[in-house]
């Protein structure tokens, strides 16, 4: 992704200078290795702060919700799909946006790379298809493809689906990715095993809601966890409450989730929460032929129906 940053700066500066947008939403370099911080640039002379590398995993569509300004936004494939979803759900208007598309080669898994190093990591830099990991007493070169975020490894929409500017030529899409291997593995378990699997998966959850808040789909004015009349779910870390929270959180993303991986990336407890949203993604694809965020024309699957939708489960 070399050269992306320069192009992003150039486009952003131009858009701001020409007054085409009031702000550009992008990433600036973080204070930590493998972390870039979402930021907003309002002046052309500040466009130089913008960066792009393999650490831009947070979904920027999250920062668009209900904004009124004219906005330039940097968008990799998944961001662009969530922007499309935002447009469909009336959380932003298309004509407010100048989408600066980024053909994406995947983001790296910061949890995974951190756990691969004995000592604290000092810096991680992109070098083409490789990344260089510097730690206290070592320097390692890793194949980027081997340390991608799990969702990126199976991504089939790396290129932005809608855009007004493009920072580089489109990249080749991954063709033979097996998107749902992990879901199938769980589906094959017995009810008992499934129950145990999720008990174990969700045990470290501290109910901080980072997964919910990192998700561009979660913008309800009052989340179901905050409703008190009636109260749907308890507030403690009781396993049943935690499970109810994760069930409903995932379900609210049904037919809308683009598998951008923000939830998992944000989770401070390192929980692989995508196995929940991916199940719904898979079902939507298999039952209704639906992939979220590919167009701004079609209604999402729970907002429409076909007369002959499958109903084997109904007596």
């Amino acid at each position, binding site marked *: 992704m070399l050269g992306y940053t320069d192009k992003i700066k150039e486009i952003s500066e131009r858009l701001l200078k020409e007054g085409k947008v009031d702000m550009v939403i992008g990433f600036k370099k973080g204070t930590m290795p493998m972390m870039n911080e979402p930021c907003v640039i309002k002046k052309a002379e500040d466009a130089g702060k913008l960066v792009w590398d393999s650490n831009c995993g947070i979904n920027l569509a999250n920062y668009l919700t209900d904004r009124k300004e004219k906005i330039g936004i940097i968008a990799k494939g998944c961001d662009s799909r969530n922007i499309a979803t935002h447009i469909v759900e009336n959380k932003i208007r298309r004509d407010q946006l100048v989408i600066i598309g980024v053909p994406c080669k995947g983001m790296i898994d910061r949890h995974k790379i951190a756990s691969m190093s004995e000592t604290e990591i000092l810096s991680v830099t992109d070098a083409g298809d490789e990344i260089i990991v510097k730690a206290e007493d070592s320097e390692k070169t890793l194949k980027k493809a081997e340390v991608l975020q799990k969702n990126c490894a199976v991504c089939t929409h790396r290129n932005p689906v809608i855009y007004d500017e493009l920072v580089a030529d489109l990249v080749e899409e991954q063709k033979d990715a097996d998107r749902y291997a992990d879901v199938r593995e769980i589906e094959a378990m017995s009810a008992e095993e499934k129950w145990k699997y999720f008990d174990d998966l969700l045990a*470290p959850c501290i109910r*901080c809601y980072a997964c919910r808040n990192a998700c561009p789909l979660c913008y309800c004015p009052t989340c179901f966890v905050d409703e008190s009349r009636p109260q749907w779910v308890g507030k*403690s870390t009781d396993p049943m409450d935690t499970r109810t929270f994760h069930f409903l959180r995932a379900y609210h993303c049904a037919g809308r989730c683009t598998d951008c991986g923000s939830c998992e990336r944000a989770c401070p407890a390192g929980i692989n929460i995508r196995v929940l949203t991916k199940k719904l993604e898979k079902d939507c694809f298999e039952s209704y032929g639906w992939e979220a965020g590919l167009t701004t024309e079609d209604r999402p699957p729970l907002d429409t129906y076909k007369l002959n939708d499958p109903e084997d489960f109904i007596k």
Partner: protein
Amino acid sequence: MKVIKIDKKDWAGGLGKLSDAYRLFGPVKDKDVSDFKELAAGELPDFDFLNTNLSAKSAVFPQNEVMFEYSLDESQEDHHIMKEPEKDYSPRAVIGIRPCDAAAFLLVKRNFDTPEYKDPYWIRAYEASTFVGLACNDPGKTCFCTTAGCGPFHEDGLDVLIADAGDHFLAKAITEKGEALLQAAGWGAEADGGQIETMKKAAEAKISSTVSTDSLKDKVTTELYDASFWEDTAFACLNCGTCTYVCPTCWCFDIQDENYGKAGIRMRNWDSCMYPLFTIHGSGHNPRGTKTQRVRQRFMHKLKYYVDKYGAGIQCVGCGRCVRLCPVNIDIREVCEFMNSYDPAATTCKAA
């Protein structure tokens, strides 16, 4: 106080003896993540960690805690009357707590143990605890304890400081409580205290991250509050509660009644100033309704309100957890710098 040498081969045995007299809490690793848990019989604390994901505050202030029990069954004599549950406040030892986490208890104590009101749950658990600290020989890149009133070998708040010296631990009793614990464990071989001093200097020299806090107390609250940097600082914030939950000095909580048929409990749960629900009025009005207001509250509380209220420095021990675990890299060290160096006059001039 005296310094004891504990051969590592005597470590498990000593802990075994301790478990007769104390409930033991310590860092335990689960799927690569270290956190403080009550140790099962025979379970050893796992010292292979920079710092735990969550702080050790849960040993005294659990994320969910029963305050009262009640019955809603009107055939019962005492229905609808709150009753304090029986709780286990027998001696507990928190083994392997980092000095920063222990120092944090002292900051938090100012909130729970006030001249007017005493929080009985926190105080009883705190008083029942003996804190056995594990000094940091290799502090992390995000540790800024030495400029946050703390340090890798900091002793305030600890009862015993243990330093890992290779094949043995050096244990320094800091309080009588600590001395009693060492005795109960049967560790008694006296050692030279000088080595701890040397290790301490070496560890402190490794701290590369700092904050400046000297000017915070002189800032005018309302000026700092109205500063222009808050909007940019808060932009990336997702308003999740990660920073507050992992923080050893965040103490805010919510109170909830939970009913199970005709009985129930009043409990408290950690809460977070990051959540809109934290402050929303019954009318729907919310004095901290925006993300920027909530982010500002967190930093103003830690770095200004607390400083002014108690005159005892910032409400932060520099453990670096919020820096490491923030999903969007909001960094308290940067914000502290903005605040400490804030000059309203300069900002006004620039704008004009």
